[in-house]
C-alpha cells in the first residue's frame, strides 16, 4: 500500500473510532442533566454548569483524536 493512502485511511480510522466513546459519553451526560433539570427545575443553573464542565472534559478526548489524526496526516 502506498504511504499516502495508508495515512489517509489511518486518519479516518483514528477520528472515527476516537469519536465513538465521547459521543456515547456526552449523550449520557446530557440525558442525565436533562432528567435532573426535569426533577428539580430550580437547580437548572448549577446543573448546567456541572454539565458543561463534564461535556468539556469528555469532548476533549474526541479533540485529542482529531489532533492525532492531523498529526498522522501532516507530520
Amino acid at each position: 500500500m502506498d504511504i499516502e493512502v495508508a495515512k489517509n485511511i489511518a486518519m479516518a480510522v483514528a477520528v472515527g473510532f476516537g469519536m465513538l466513546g465521547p459521543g456515547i459519553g456526552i449523550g449520557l451526560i446530557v440525558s442525565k442533566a436533562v432528567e435532573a433539570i426535569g426533577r428539580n427545575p430550580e437547580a437548572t443553573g448549577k446543573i448546567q454548569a456541572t454539565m458543561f464542565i463534564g461535556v468539556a472534559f469528555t469532548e476533549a478526548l474526541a479533540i485529542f483524536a482529531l489532533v492525532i489524526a492531523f498529526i498522522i496526516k501532516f507530520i
Partner: protein
Amino acid sequence: MHEIHISLGSEKLGTFLGLPITNTLLMTLLGTATLFLIIFLSRNVSLLPNKFQVFMELLIGGIFNFVKETLESVSLAKKYFPLIATLFLSIVVANLIHFLPGVHSILFLTNEGKEVALLRGATSDLNVTLALALISFVSIELAGVYALGFSYAKKFVNLDSFLGFVIGIIDLFSEAARLISFSFRLFGNIFAGEVVIAIIVAFIPVIAPVPMMGFEFFVGIIQAAIFALLTLFFIKSAVTPHH
C-alpha cells in the same frame, strides 16, 4: 463539477512591512471593525430605548447576571465580566460575519500568481483560536493565583499523601490539555462546518446549502457561548479554595 478547494491553514495574500497578511487576518480586523461599529451605534443611550438599545441591554445585562450567579459574588463578577463578555462577543461576531456574501467567493490574485479567497472565517484558522485559548488559559491561572495566592500551587503539588500527589499531577496535565481542547474545539467545529458547506455547494450549488448554513449559524453562536462559559467555569473552579 468543479474541484472542491479546502485548505487547512490560512492563505497568504501579501506582506506589509515584512509581516505576512493572511485572509483570516483581514477577517479578524473586519470583526474588530464590526464590534467598534456596534459600540458606535450603542453610544446614544436614551431613557426611552429603541429596539437596538433594548437588545444590547438584554444581552449585556443577561451575561452579567449569569456571571454573577455562577461566581456567587458581585465583586468577582465585576472583575471577570469584561473578559467573559469580550471573549463571547468577539468570537460570536467572528463566527457570524463569515456568512456574509463574498467571504470565500471573492478571489485575490497574489504576487506569486495564486488565486486565493480574499476573506476566510477568522476562527477557521488555528492561530486565531490558539491565541484566544492562550488568553483564556493565562487569565484562568492568574485568577487562581490572584484569589488564593501561594496556596493555588497546592492544587497541583500536594505532598500530604501519595494519592493527593498523583491527583495533583493528573490535574496539572488536564490543566495544560485545556489549551489544546479550547483551541481545537472552536477550530474543529467551525472548520468542519466550512468543509461540509463547501462539499454541499460542490454537489448542489442552489438551495441545498441553505439549511446547513442555518445550522452552522447556530453552531457559531453555541461555540462562542461554550468558549466563554468554559472560561467562566474554570475561573470559578480556580478561585474556589482547595479542600
